[in-house]
């Protein structure tokens, strides 16, 4: 165990204390909704190579924590800090509840997100990476759940983010898709850090740090 903050247990498998660069700092983060604290007092720092898995029962606030870190949901207290730079470039998020535009094709999604982020689209490279090249001209409304999950993964890693947030990344994916997630997390650990929110025991192996929401 490396920490105990506000009912949150942080445990480490092979945690190394000397991380050269802090890519993500979460300081006393708390979120209150409808008069009830979803989570409170969460503090941690992640650097290059850190892979944190957030565990907890349904409704424990795993997805809300990821959305709060990403700035998609307002925080009640605390702070989240990224390295200097535009959060559009340093952060990638792939969430189960995230939707895609049914009328746009797979490659149009990647072009759109690249245009809005101001980063290279890398359409061919990303589609090959997530094994979705064969469906590049297909409208998102015609994709299966697993194919949409691959598209969302491609959009999340498009800017080569320092911080990658994955919410239930294996949901809806077949065996090959799960292997793909494993490869993406391994690649991510080389250039930055990763947070995975999951209930899947198999996905715990993606991480070297654990945070249990209680």
């Amino acid at each position, binding site marked *: 165990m490396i920490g105990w903050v506000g009912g949150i247990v942080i445990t480490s498998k092979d945690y190394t204390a000397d991380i050269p660069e802090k890519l993500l700092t979460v300081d006393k983060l708390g979120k209150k909704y409808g008069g009830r604290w979803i989570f409170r007092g969460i503090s941690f720092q992640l650097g290059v190579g850190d892979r944190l898995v957030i565990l907890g029962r349904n409704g424990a606030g795993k997805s809300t924590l990821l*959305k709060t870190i*990403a*700035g*998609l949901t*307002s925080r009640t207290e605390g702070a989240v800090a990224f390295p200097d730079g535009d959060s*559009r470039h340093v*952060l*990638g*998020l792939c*969430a189960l*509840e*995230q*939707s*895609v*535009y*049914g*009328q*746009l094709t797979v490659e*149009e999604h990647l072009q*759109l*997100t690249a*245009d*809005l*982020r101001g980063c290279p689209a890398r359409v061919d490279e990303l589609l090959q990476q997530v094994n979705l090249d064969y469906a590049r001209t297909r*409208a998102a409304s015609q994709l299966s759940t697993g194919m949409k999950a691959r598209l969302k993964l491609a*959009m999340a890693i498009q800017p080569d983010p320092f911080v990658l947030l994955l919410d239930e990344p294996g949901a809806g994916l077949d065996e090959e898709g799960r292997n793909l997630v494993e490869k993406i997390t391994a690649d991510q650990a080389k250039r930055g850090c990763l947070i995975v929110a999951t209930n899947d025991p198999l996905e715990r192996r993606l991480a070297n740090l654990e945070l249990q929401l209680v």
Partner: protein
Amino acid sequence: MKEWQIEMRSQSGLITGLLFSVVTVYAISFATLNAKLPGTVIAGLLWIALLFSGAASLPRIFLAEEEQGTADLLRLVARPHAVFWGKSIFNCLQAVVTGLILSFLYIGFTSKAVSVPWLFTVCIAMGSLSLAGAVTLCGAIAAQAANRSVLSAAIAVPLLLPLVALGVSGLRVALNDGAISDGYVAAVGLTGYAFATLATGPYIFAAVWKT
């Protein structure tokens, strides 16, 4: 560009607006058949048609992002100003095109002579731009609320009242029912309203976009 691609494939907004225009023009023309209506009444009826045509389709552009769950994707990858301008420009184009088609259909069906054509065109174009700016902003502000449709309508009412007053005043003069000086005031007022909503919109939107 994204709005354009989606609209061209679904064609929901343009078709809704145009169908609404045709049905409204037909209904008003039928109801006032053989009646000699003053310019003020015709201007009022035309503005009601414009208002409902815009209110039916324009706020959807933001509300739909929240309802379909795509808003978070935009929040992650886009600057608020880019989102606001992308959607506003699309809404403005749609509103002006629909407004001009509706107006000329209406004038054609009612056979009412337009005595000041430039004022008529300016009032319709600037009125449609103002309407698009105001309604888009209302949709953007209300988009994240649980009861977003009701809230959007509630915010829109006080914003649209002065716009309707200016629009009716200008069109009334264009249809030969009032002093031309009133028409100038209305045209300048509508132009100012359009610029004001579009100039302040990005800043208001940026404040509510990621909260």
